[in-house]
């Protein structure tokens, strides 16, 4: 009984997704309407940057790209809450242990999946269909469903029987930001609302409201607003930076004696272990007091790039071959690439240089959050400890390899 009604719902949604072209969806799934506070002064965006349908569907134009540097904030009225929530009262209640993780193959996503599995959740992972499927997720015991956020008609089927959606998806650096991060997210949130998802966890970026000039941050901020207006029970978690990212960026090059590239930016980032992020997320998810809140997770201390490199050098016991690129160069490159339509994606990717050149501190006082969640601050891993652990393990491994190679030398 229950399954049939849910299946019917999903097929209805799926078909409505397909019928979108004929306008049958207009009443079922609402679209965000975006209203400009100021009309863009610069030249309008070339229409080729959006696919036609997407442009029709979501009339946003990113004025941040306009050459003159005049920017205007995107404001919008969300009418997602006008959606009549589908009545699923007659069905079996969805088990609170069933969750959907979007972006499960990412740095954070995989830790969220692991944590969830370990805490006994039934985890479904939404991954894009790809030639090499994410086998490691299946190996851990998660269910993998194929769907693509940029194709909204694939989404509803994946939400059947789901209690909570955890959204850790971000577009890959090499693809245009808007398809996944805005259009895909809007479709996902609307689906979640329409299908009665009971909690939506969204990861955003710290300070995203203060840097509208960075496309990704602006999109995250708009998505936050969209979720808040949608009427879903949500938790928005703003993050600062992941320690895991530092390993590829600094630790590995230092060990391999390759040149390390750093900036002289004064920006400080309070890096956090993704495992801690995942842990705190689940604590927050189960905490009634945290619902409909905006939480910021930050590490215990904020670090500049130079400090991180120095720390890595100390722990690795060798000097790094540091190449310092001044932020000014980054900014200049960005300005340069922004002039040309075909390098705009590049410009977007370099957009953080704007953030870097302002001496923002990506950190937040965590005391209140700890108190709200009942977490001991001592349990949060610090960057020193994290890197130390990493280097001890790696150096040990390297030593083993060396010992082995010596043995083979004798053998031959």
């Amino acid at each position, binding site marked *: 009984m229950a399954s049939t009604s849910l299946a019917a719902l999903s097929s209805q949604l799926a078909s409505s997704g397909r019928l979108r072209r004929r306008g049958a969806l207009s009443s079922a799934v609402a679209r965000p309407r975006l209203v400009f506070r100021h009309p863009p002064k610069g030249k309008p965006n070339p229409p080729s940057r959006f696919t036609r349908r997407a442009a029709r569907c979501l009339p946003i134009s990113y004025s941040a790209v306009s050459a003159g540097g005049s920017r205007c904030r995107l404001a919008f009225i969300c009418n997602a809450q006008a959606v009549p929530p589908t009545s699923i009262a007659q069905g079996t209640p969805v088990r609170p242990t069933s969750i959907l993780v979007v972006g499960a193959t990412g740095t954070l996503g995989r830790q969220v999946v692991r944590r969830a599995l370990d805490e006994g959740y039934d985890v479904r992972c939404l991954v894009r269909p790809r030639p090499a499927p994410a086998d490691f997720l299946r190996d851990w015991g998660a269910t993998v469903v194929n769907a693509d956020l940029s194709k909204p008609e694939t989404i509803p089927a994946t939400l059947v029987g789901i209690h909570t959606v955890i959204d850790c998806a971000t577009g890959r650096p090499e693809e245009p930001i808007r398809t996944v991060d805005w259009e895909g997210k809007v479709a996902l949130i609307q689906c979640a609302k329409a299908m009665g998802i009971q909690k939506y966890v969204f990861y955003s*970026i710290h300070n995203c409201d203060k840097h509208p000039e960075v496309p990704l941050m602006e999109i995250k901020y708009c998505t936050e607003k969209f979720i808040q207006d949608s009427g879903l029970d949500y938790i928005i978690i703003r993050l600062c930076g992941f320690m895991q990212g530092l390993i*590829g960026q600094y630790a590995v090059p230092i060990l391999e004696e390759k040149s390390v590239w750093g900036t002289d930016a004064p920006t400080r980032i309070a890096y956090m272990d993704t495992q801690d992020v995942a842990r705190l997320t689940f604590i927050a998810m189960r905490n009634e007091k945290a619902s409909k809140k905006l939480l910021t997770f930050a590490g215990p201390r904020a670090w500049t790039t130079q400090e991180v490199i120095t720390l890595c050098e100390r722990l690795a016991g060798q000097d790094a071959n540091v190449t310092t690129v001044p932020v000014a160069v980054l900014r200049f490159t960005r300005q340069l690439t922004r002039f040309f339509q075909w390098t705009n994606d590049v410009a977007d990717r370099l957009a953080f240089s704007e953030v870097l050149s302002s001496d923002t501190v990506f950190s937040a006082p965590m005391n209140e959050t700890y108190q709200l969640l009942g977490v001991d601050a001592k349990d949060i891993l610090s960057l020193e400890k994290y890197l130390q652990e990493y280097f001890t393990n790696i150096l040990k491994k390297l030593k083993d390899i060396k010992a082995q190679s010596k043995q083979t030398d004798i053998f031959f």
Partner: protein
Amino acid sequence: MAAIVAVRASGAAAVSTIASFHSHHCAPPSHSRTALAVASTSSSSIGARRYHHGACCFAAKPTQVATDLMDQDGTDLAAAASAQEVAKPPRRKARSRRSKKKSTTAKLEEEDEEGKDKQAAAAAAAEEEAKKKKEAEESGRALASLEDVIVNPVGLGRRSRQVFDEVWRKFSRLAQMSSASSTALAEEEQAVLIRGGPMCDFTVPGAQDTTVLVVGATSRIGRIVVRKLMLRGYNVKALVRRDDPEVIDMLPRSVDIVVGDVGDPSTVKEAISGCSKIIYCATARSTITGDLNRVDNQGVRNASKAFQDYYNELAQLRAGKSSKSKLLIAKFKSAKSLNGWEMRQGSYFPNTFSSSFDEGVDASFEFSEDRQAVFLGFVFTRGGYVEISKRLSLPLGSTLDRYDGLLLSVGGNGRSYVVILETGPLADTSQSKKYFARMTTKVGFCRIRLPFSAFRPVNPQDPPLDPFLVHTLTIRFEPKKQRPGDGSQNASDPRNFQLILEYIKALPTGQETDFILVSCAGSGIEPNRREQVLKAKKAGEDALRRSGLGYTIVRPGPLQEEPGGQRALIFDQGNRISQGISCADVADICVKALHDSTARNKSFDVCYEYVADHGTELYELVAHLPDKANNYLAPALSVLEKNT
């Protein structure tokens, strides 16, 4: 790129490289043309060899950056830059090759010259290189391949593309805050951070070498157990009953799946081969007695037997004895086996009046006609007793300290006996110490497990029993301490006794538990079937305890489907459980118990903490919220009694 490699090869030069780079760094980077110019002049002006290297590096890097900057409009510049780049690799290679050969001073001079020649056009340089290589008597083949790189435009393009991509990747990553998951990075992470790597939350040392059989892998607990094991990097085998694609799909891909029923010994045997641990979380689907008996009782029996068989098989391959098999102390199957057993009578009141009446005691220990060793008789005397004892003769090389306790298989009319172990020097019996433990038998045949830890010294001042020193085993019957309600009410007279002995074995000891059984605490079952369910579960538990395997029996309260790790847990022995527990918590206990020495040979009830104000003092609160690196299990279990 090649230049960077060069710097690395000559370690001493690297420092100066950075220095020179920084010194030139002040030049406004936007003027990349000038930067390039500076680069080329510096490389030409410096004569000394070391600085030459440094300049090389310097020239290469800004060139690449400049290429990035310029590649949109100034293609000619980029081409020039790459040409310069290409000019360098062969030169470097030639030099390194030469330096591998014992380079003389003459050659060093040559090299210096070569360094000065550097600003020469690319083609000229290549020619020169070719000449010098000939001088160095290099093999022609290497030369051909080198020229290939230079001349072949495809190779050249590919190479410069690689270099460009690498530099661009690093450059653009600089401008990103937290580098999102690039696939290359994800691969690097896999080794250390994920799946059994040293830095993930769930690491268990030695997990890779452990294969765990999960019986009932699709049950509510089993599902989570499998996932937890996979996360920790164990090898997992799963025994499932139904061969459904739906069921199979539920399990992770790399789980080894055996389809079969626990009631069938052959499938269990097949499933168990290759495993070093068993987690048994199968339960009967119905409360039909046959079903209960098959899964909860016979299943456990089959699994523990198959496990022992498997270990014996392995041991035979090594031409030794399995460390998990029991040691036979005495087997009563022929009249000869009674040799060495002595019967004695005695009294606790040796000097009182009653002891003078000899007629009060009569007993015999003999091999009966139906081939059973029977110890029977009566003790009417107050304070009198009768006992059989034997000096132990263990096989060579085995001592009792490698064993955990005794297992007796006996039958009879259900009296209680005292088992006494004597320790001390064999020659001087006056110094020997005695330790006793009580064993209660049932009417009919049963097997009794007597752990050495249950033996108490007769003289309270004596130290605890050391199994290594045991030399004599005694079984004593004494009528006075018969407890009411142990099956002897309907017997004619509690002073009569009959004990049929089958065998006495010693149970092996070990560090870790081998077999984890998820049983149930009994609350939450519908009342009219509770008896049957518990009976079957109990029979299964008993079978496991007697198997000689290290066991852990978990008896959870009513299971709840919710995420684990949220509430404190109560570990308790004795039927005092009132609360439920989440499946995930039970699974966590199972997985934690695998390598916990305190979990060996324990049975315990577990449930959520009772959150009322009163009543909690009945229990000992031992667990906290499970957290990262918080091993709650060991302290919780260490206070509980073993072998219950």
